[in-house]
Structure formats: structure tokens, C-alpha cells
């Protein structure tokens, strides 16, 4: 019988236990949809990326013209590129919701799942950055220059490291070749880590909004969550297609349409929206090395979250102060995103510095406030 088959066959058994019979808490909210959406994003990026790679030539002069001509020459080439470019934005939107969910509901207490997840976040950021450089337009060239230059701040070896990354004395041909190689490779590493991430998650099972044990009350993944995730995917695809097809350039920058020119600095260098908060943190530290450290810390601090589980109960559900702090944190990230797009001048500098401090304070105050709440109640 077919049911017997997919339960006993060693290959299908895996899918059966992750996508069909997996016991899942019935009370998880729409914030738990982002995991499946992220798998979808990764698949979309890998497939569209394969198509793009097959029409791409890496090189300082070559890439720019080639990329735009390929959009018209290859069948639906423009659509593939719009999907890939805006797909990165959807990817980060989902990532930030997913991480935000994890922070709010204490998912970081699943230490191993969490740490693999943070690694995936970091690798995705690296992949997105390298991919952004590949069309070699003004903004991607200058973005690459600014970011690779940060490595020169590493004590002693910095300048050598930067040259090693460039493969030359500045961002030039070899830089583009290697960025292409790594941009192609990294997503497959991410894919492997995603498998690990999901395997580890299924060792504990999903958390839930209440943060309590849910063994007593579970439902099978199919058809409850296969449907709910399917609905999430359909809605997200709808929104995504709407943007890709009607406002494909809205998240980009005018400078993306000029060929890279090492002798003309753009009026305003800024990354894509999803890096603006980190960019603001980088720029709000007056010392360059300090800025780089703060930039790294702004993401790496997530690795420390598992150590902040001082509270008796999991998540923020029963801690009103933590809830307030969390939403304050969201405001901080949004404010930093705004500051990242502003010029470096008063009053943006000070505003950015204040929000940077508040950003890091969140990670400290949340566990303390929760522990105090426990002590008081």
C-alpha cells in the first residue's frame, strides 16, 4: 500500500516525518510561517540564480553591459533578474520576521537550532552583499569598496587581507571573479545548513507562543500546517509578484543604472534597505575600527542570546516589560534603517548614536528585566 511505502522507504521516511506526520503545536501563530517562507525564498533564489549565472560574464567592464543586454536577449531574462534582485529583499524581510519571532518568543533557548540559524543569517548577508557587487554598477562598485576596506582595520594584517580579498590593489577584475565564485557557492552551504537547522528543530519540536510544553496537545503537520504554510507562500508570492511586476525598481537605487566609475564617487553611498541598520551602526562610531567592531557585534550578538535565558518562563508572553522592550527594539531597528539612508551630518549622527546604544541595551535589559519580574512576582 502506498502509505506503507512512504513510511518505510528510507528516503520517503524522512519527508514523511518532517512534512506529514511531524507533531506540531496547534497554537503557533502566523509568525511561525516565516520558516517555510524562507525555504521557499532560498529555492527561488537558487533556481533564478542558476538562470542568471548562465548568462553572466564576470569582469569590470563586461558585466554591466552584459547583464542588461541579457535581460532583453534571453527569454524572460528581465523577469528572472527582477525575481532574483527583489527576491533578496523578500528573503531578508522573512529573515528579520523569523529572527524577531525567535527573540520575542524565546526560540533562542533551542541553542543549537538558534546558532545554526544565526550562521545562516550571516552567510545570507555575505551572499547578498557579494551578489549585489556582480552587476558592477556605480553603487555596487562603491559598496564593494567601502565594505572591503573595512577589513583594512584588522590590526597588523588588515591591509594585506584587503589586497588578498581584492586580488589586486583595488576592487577590480579578480575581485569580481571571486565574488561570483563565492556568490554561487555560498547558497549551497546555506542549503546544507538549512537541513541541519530543520533537523535540529525537529529534535525538540517547534516552540509556541505560550512558551510552555506542548507535548500534551499536538496535531500532525499535514494537513494543518501544510495548508497554513501553503497559504503563507501563496500570499507572500502574491505580494512579491506584485512588487516584481509593477514596482521592480522601487527597492533599488538610481546608481544601479550607471557603469561603475572608480574616479566618480556617487553623491550618496548606501546599501540596500536590509543592511541600512547595520550601516547606521557602523557609521555612528567615530572610530573606524570601533565602527567595524560594532557592525560585527550588531549581528554576532545574536549568538549570545542563548545565554540570556535568565527568566523562569520562556518567551515574552508573561513578561510585560520584555514585551515593551521588544517593541522598543523594533523601533530602534527601524530608526537605524532610516538613519542609514541619511547623510552623515547633524542631527542624524547623534540620532544614530543614540539608537545604536539603545539597540545594544535591548540585549542587556531584556534578561535583567525578566529576572527582576520573576523575583518580584
Amino acid at each position, binding site marked *: 500500500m502506498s502509505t506503507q511505502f512512504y513510511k518505510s522507504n528510507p528516503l520517503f521516511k524522512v519527508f514523511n516525518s518532517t512534512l506529514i506526520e511531524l507533531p506540531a503545536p*496547534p497554537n503557533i501563530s502566523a509568525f511561525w510561517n516565516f520558516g517555510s517562507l524562507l525555504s521557499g525564498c532560498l529555492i527561488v533564489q537558487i533556481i533564478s540564480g542558476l538562470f542568471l549565472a548562465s548568462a553572466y560574464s564576470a569582469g569590470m567592464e563586461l558585466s554591466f*553591459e552584459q547583464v*542588461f*543586454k541579457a*535581460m*532583453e536577449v534571453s527569454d524572460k531574462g*528581465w*523577469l528572472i533578474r527582477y525575481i532574483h534582485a527583489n527576491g533578496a529583499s523578500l528573503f531578508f524581510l522573512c529573515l528579520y520576521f523569523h529572527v524577531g519571532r525567535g527573540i520575542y518568543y524565546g526560540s533562542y533557548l533551542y541553542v543549537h537550532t538558534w546558532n545554526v540559524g544565526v550562521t545562516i543569517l550571516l552567510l545570507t548577508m555575505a551572499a547578498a552583499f557579494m551578489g549585489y557587487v556582480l552587476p558592477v554598477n556605480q553603487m555596487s562598485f562603491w559598496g564593494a569598496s567601502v565594505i572591503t576596506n573595512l577589513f583594512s582595520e584588522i590590526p597588523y594584517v588588515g591591509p594585506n587581507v584587503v589586497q588578498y580579498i581584492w586580488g589586486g590593489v583595488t576592487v577590480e577584475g579578480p575581485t569580481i571573479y571571486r565574488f561570483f565564485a563565492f556568490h554561487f557557492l555560498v547558497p549551497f552551504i546555506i542549503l546544507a545548513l538549512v537541513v541541519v537547522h530543520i533537523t535540529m528543530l525537529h529534535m525538540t519540536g517547534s516552540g509556541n507562543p505560550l512558551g510552555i510544553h506542548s507535548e500534551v*496537545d499536538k*496535531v500532525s503537520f499535514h*494537513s*494543518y500546517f501544510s*495548508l*497554513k504554510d*501553503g*497559504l503563507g507562500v*501563496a*500570499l507572500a*508570492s*502574491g505580494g512579491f*509578484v*506584485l512588487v516584481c*511586476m*509593477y514596482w*521592480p*525598481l522601487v527597492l533599488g537605487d*538610481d*546608481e*544601479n*543604472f*550607471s*557603469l561603475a566609475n572608480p574616479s566618480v564617487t556617487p*553623491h550618496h553611498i548606501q546599501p540596500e534597505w536590509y543592511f541600512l541598520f547595520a550601516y547606521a551602526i557602523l557609521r555612528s562610531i567615530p572610530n573606524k575600527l570601533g565602527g567595524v567592531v560594532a557592525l560585527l557585534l550588531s549581528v554576532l550578538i545574536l549568538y549570545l542570546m542563548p545565554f540570556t535565558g535568565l527568566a523562569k518562563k520562556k518567551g515574552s508572553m508573561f513578561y510585560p516589560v520584555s514585551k515593551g522592550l521588544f517593541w522598543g527594539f523594533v*523601533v530602534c531597528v527601524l530608526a537605524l534603517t*532610516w538613519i542609514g539612508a*541619511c*547623510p552623515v*551630518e547633524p*542631527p*542624524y549622527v547623534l*540620532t544614530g548614536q543614540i539608537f545604536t546604544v539603545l539597540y545594544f541595551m535591548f540585549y542587556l535589559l531584556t534578561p535583567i528585566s525578566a529576572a527582576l519580574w520573576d523575583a518580584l512576582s
Partner: protein
Amino acid sequence: MSTFRNLSSSRRLALGLLGLAGAGGAGLALSLERAVSAADADRFAHAPHFHWPHEGFLDSYDVKSIRRGYEVYKNVCAACHGCFTVAYRMLRNVCMTPEEAKAEAKRATYLDGPNDEGEMYNRPGKTADYLPKPYPNEQAAAYANGGKAPPDLGLITFARHGYENYIFALLTGYQDPPAGFQVDEGLYFNPYFRGGALAMPPPLYNEVLEYSDGTPATKSQCAKDVACFLRFAAEPWHDERKKLALKLVSLLALISAALAYYNRHVWTVLINRKVMYVPKKKSS
């Protein structure tokens, strides 16, 4: 549902304060944004919004305008600017018949080769060729234009804030500089250009060319048509995009609606169940 009225007074106060802080913050942010843009040293006029024929969700390009725009490009702009995104084959069935496109391509000459003897040679264009470039390289272009190379117009529409609005505003915006504004030798005042003065002499004036369809070639008509053409150059798949968009968006909306309904159907029992704790009755 809890309403604002039956919240405890302390909660009401907290919510009120939160709202006040939020509104205040937003107001502050807005005023900061305003205050600073006024102090921006690098000021220039932002192009107004014009209503383009291809603007709406269901609007296609105006092919007649593109045809005229190509004529303006070929007769005026092509002397200084290239347009690397457009090949002659792309014009056929858009603003030319296949024969016209072929004839148009033939009129241009291209350096090709090497031939069997290892020599480069000139040949007439084919429809697969991209529009010819006026200068062999950037240096020659800059040298011929007083040190500023005319940029390629292939993607210029998307490369400037305001898109085709900017192109139109720039081309029609030449005027005498205001008193006290110093314009350097070889530059021309234009309030829409960042910095206020550019190296391009005003390229358009009334009757700069004669349109093949008889439309009076006023300056603004030429500017509008060439802007339409340059938008086409930057996004030749525009019409295809909007057609596909309509199909995909409506398809996904239908799928979403169906899934939403079925989802609710499947979940409804689970969502409406009631879990109760019933202590066992003590049997006396």
C-alpha cells in the same frame, strides 16, 4: 473584545503616553527631515511629475511616440550619445515594420572582422546590431565635448531620479541663469541638473527636425517623444511585463483566496474547540 473604555486607568494612561510619544517621535523625525533638506548645499530643481502615456497599470507604451522619439534620437542625440541597450531588431513590430528596421540598420556602418586576410572592414548594419556609438571611446567623447563625455543614453532614464520626468524637464529646462549665478565657460545653466550647469548645449528647439508622421515638432513634443523612446530603451520588456503581471497577480489572488477558504475549513474544528479543566468530583 476589550475596549479602551474598560481598561484600567493606569493602562489607559500608559497607552495614552505611548501614543503621544509615537506621534511626537514621528513629528520630530519629519521636522528633522524637512529642516535638513532645506540646508542641502547641492540644491537643484526636482522634475515635476508628468502624465506619461505608459503610466497606468494597464497602459502600454505609446508606439507612435517611440517612433518619433527614435527619429529625435537619431537626428539629434546620436551625434553625441550612444544607446547601448537598443538593437535594430527591437524596433521592428514596435515602431517599425521588419523591412523598415532592416533598411534602417543598413544605413549604419559597422567595423567588423577580421576577414580571411586578417583585415578589419566596414560593413552595412544588420538588424541584430545595436545602435552605433558616436565615439570610439570615452576619451574621444570627452575630448570632443569640452572634457565631459556624453553618457550612454541606454539606461539613462532609470539612472536619474525622476526617470522620464527628469529627461523631459532637463531637455526643456534650459534658461538664463538667475542673477548672481556664475556659469563656467562651456557650460549651460539648467536648474534640473545637479549643480545647475552642464556641458550639453541645449539640444532641442522648435522644428529641430521634421517628423515623418507630420506631427509639429515643437521643443516640448520632441522632448516628450525622446523621453518615451529612452524609457523604451531602458525597459523594452515593459508591455510584456504588464501583461504577464495581470495574469500572475490575478492567478495568485485566486489561489490565495481558495487556500484561505480551505485552510479555514480544515482548521475550524481545532480553533473552535474548548479545553476545560474539570476537577474530579470527590466521591464521599
